């Protein structure tokens, strides 16, 4: 449905925080299945010591959630819930359960559905599956879209990016 170049065209996140690969299905008006493959080459495994057991390669919950949130952002974009120059920001979470973590080799499948939409606000629900198991259940992810320009610092400060 959307390959990775099309995913990039709709998301503003970039590596190391671009955590979505494809959209497999979009079912109008407002549900989708999006995927991310987890590999051993991810940034988060850079510091894992040699000899660590497989439990050391549990995919971090924070990144799993960010990936789910990016799937919700893509649904916001595909369902045209707001203008493209606005950025959907995750502002609220209710009742999330993280089950046995995913690992390198797993394919995350985010099943995301729109629950409510009003103006700049959208609420999503869904779950993430990997290797046939549910790894994340999210009852409510609240998103508010804001114009990108409004998110710039009022007094711009240069940010040193390590090169």
């Amino acid at each position: 449905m959307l390959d990775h170049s099309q995913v990039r065209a709709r998301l503003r996140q970039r590596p190391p925080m671009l955590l979505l690969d494809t959209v497999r299905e979009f079912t109008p008006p407002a549900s989708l299945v999006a995927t991310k493959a987890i590999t051993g080459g991810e940034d988060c495994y850079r510091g894992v010591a040699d000899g660590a057991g497989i439990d050391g390669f549990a995919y971090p919950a924070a990144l799993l959630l960010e990936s789910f949130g990016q799937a919700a952002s893509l649904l916001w974009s595909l369902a045209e819930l707001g203008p493209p120059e606005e950025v959907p920001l995750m502002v609220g979470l209710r009742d999330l359960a993280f089950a046995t973590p995913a690992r390198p080799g797993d394919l995350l499948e985010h099943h995301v559905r729109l629950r409510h939409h009003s103006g700049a606000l959208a609420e999503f629900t869904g779950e993430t599956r990997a290797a046939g198991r549910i790894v994340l259940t999210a009852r409510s992810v609240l998103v508010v879209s804001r114009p990108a320009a409004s998110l710039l610092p009022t007094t711009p400060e240069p940010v040193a990016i390590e090169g």
Partner: protein
Amino acid sequence: MPASSRTATVFDALGHPPRTEPSAEGTRVTLRLPVTRAIPQLAGHYPGFPILPGVLLIDSVRQAAGFACGAELRLCGIDRARFALPLLPGDELELSLVVTPAADGRVAVRARGTRSDGQTAAELSATLEPVVADA
């Protein structure tokens, strides 16, 4: 980051060592978190307008709670999280946690992140459990 971790890492929130003190409810933990701790992540979130990803705040709470418990913790559930203000480079957050023991060896955490101007930027209530060490 040196290849010395036993688990995957997202970023290191503990540049300033957390302060811990016992409280009536459990352990109170305070952590100063400058947004620039996450500079590598901010480069991609987002190019041209860096905003601290809310998930890194959640991971900061996990790290601070783990420091207080003396154990690596894994997130099991989030009852509620709120990200009321976007956090930008130059902002510094004071994260204040109350860590309490819960059933089955888990810990419950309630956390609030306050910006330097005193405004509440984020709140989190979550359940975590120690990562079982493998050989």
